[in-house]
């Protein structure tokens, strides 16, 4: 593979973005998924809908609203400016925020399903052994939900790598900061450099297949339970 330095920069940037987004989403998505799996609150349909929204919305809508909200005249822009952080569009942090929003359902939904599938009697049994709620979470829920965590992490990562429309709209195509692989490929295609586009596009194609193949091979869904 004869990648140019700018290809490598795009690849490195994409991997960094996907790794950080996945870590943040697991961190903040787990409590949300846990809450969704156990709550009897009337807010549940509301939160479930909000989590699923990025699945349905076109990237142009998300990109447009982020550009406006994170801009100097938007509410989030006001906040980041008053914190002395400047504005988020055209920055790596901005892409990270956007990626977390965009990939939320891919992380929260598998976790939610995994937590919901755990039999409540497991927790009760643990409670009779004097396990506190936090202990129960880490020594019962997490091990039992491991396939869910794996699916969530892989899909969150892969979906962030595959993100394009939102990045195009708020990224500004800056080398080393916001020019991810998908944008780099688009640039090549637009500039009619099809050879260069093919090289990177083929890598993405193989990456997507291998990741999903491994996931579905080694992480079979719980058929036995059904």
């Amino acid at each position, binding site marked *: 593979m004869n990648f140019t330095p700018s290809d490598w920069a795009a690849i490195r940037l994409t991997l960094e973005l996907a790794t950080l987004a996945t870590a943040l989403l697991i961190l903040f998505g787990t409590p949300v998924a846990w809450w969704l799996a156990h709550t009897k609150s009337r807010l549940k349909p509301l939160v479930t809908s909000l989590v699923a929204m990025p699945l349905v919305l076109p990237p142009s809508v998300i990109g447009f609203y982020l*550009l406006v909200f994170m*801009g100097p005249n938007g509410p989030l822009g006001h906040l980041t400016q008053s914190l002395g952080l400047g504005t988020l569009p055209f920055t790596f942090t901005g892409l990270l925020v956007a990626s977390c929003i965009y990939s939320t359902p891919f992380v929260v939904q598998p976790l939610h399903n995994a937590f919901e599938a755990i039999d409540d009697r497991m927790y009760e049994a643990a409670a009779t052994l004097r396990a506190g709620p936090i202990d129960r979470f880490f020594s019962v829920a997490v091990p039992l939900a491991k396939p869910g965590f794996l699916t969530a992490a892989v899909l969150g990562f892969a979906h962030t790598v595959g993100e394009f429309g939102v990045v195009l709209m708020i990224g500004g195509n800056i080398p080393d900061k916001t020019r991810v692989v998908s944008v780099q490929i688009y640039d090549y295609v637009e500039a009619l450099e099809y050879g260069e586009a093919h090289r990177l596009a083929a890598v993405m194609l193989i990456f997507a297949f291998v990741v999903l193949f491994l996931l579905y091979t080694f992480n079979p869904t719980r058929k036995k339970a059904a």
Partner: protein
Amino acid sequence: MKNRASRILVALLSIYSVVASADETQVAVAANFAAPVQKIAAEFEKQTGHKAIVATGATGKFYAQIVNGAPFDILLAADDETPAKLEKEGQSAVGKRFTYAIGKLVLWSAKAAVVDDKAEVLKRGGFDHLSIANPKVAPYGAAAVETMKALGVYDALQPKIVMGENIAQAHQFIATGNAPLGFVALSQVLKDGKIEGSYWIVPEKLYSPIRQDAVLLNKGKDNKAAAAFLDFLKTNKAAKDIILSYGYSL
């Protein structure tokens, strides 16, 4: 019941045939010409009865789409190279190319008093982002880079450059305030002879002229509406007035 259904069918078919007999042409238009072409298309329809259906975007993207069989009859490009290339590659009618407008570049901010009339702001700096169209694919982006190089500020400004996929996105970055200033097409910001915010019309000696050529594509060779639209664009007084009113020269 059957009779009624067939009558509805006949009615629908006759509507369809009326629509189909009115001549239509699909026109691909460079993003900087999006506003004027809407007005020209409306005037064209009023005067000739033909309909021009307009799609706007980056010239480079249209080139790739046309080469790959996109159903456009006409391309109004943002440069003269793309139409020349299409003609050379046998994608368009020979000898039908002409310059429909010469574009002007402007350094623009949505806010007052950001851009001064000598563009000192480019040397002074003090802003975080400068928006331009991707110079690799957009002629106005290439002209922006040429201008900054001519002014000797390109190296200093390079880390601040953010790129729109085409000139419309470069404009959008500035209009939403995310980039305080940037280079766009004069046609995008000139409305009724006025420009909001602050601006500097880049002197034409700082960049190569942006000759925007029109070309009749293979798909449109036998389309009456396509021929009529090109003729309208080239010769009609109303069309020319619209083009001039957006700050282009002819």
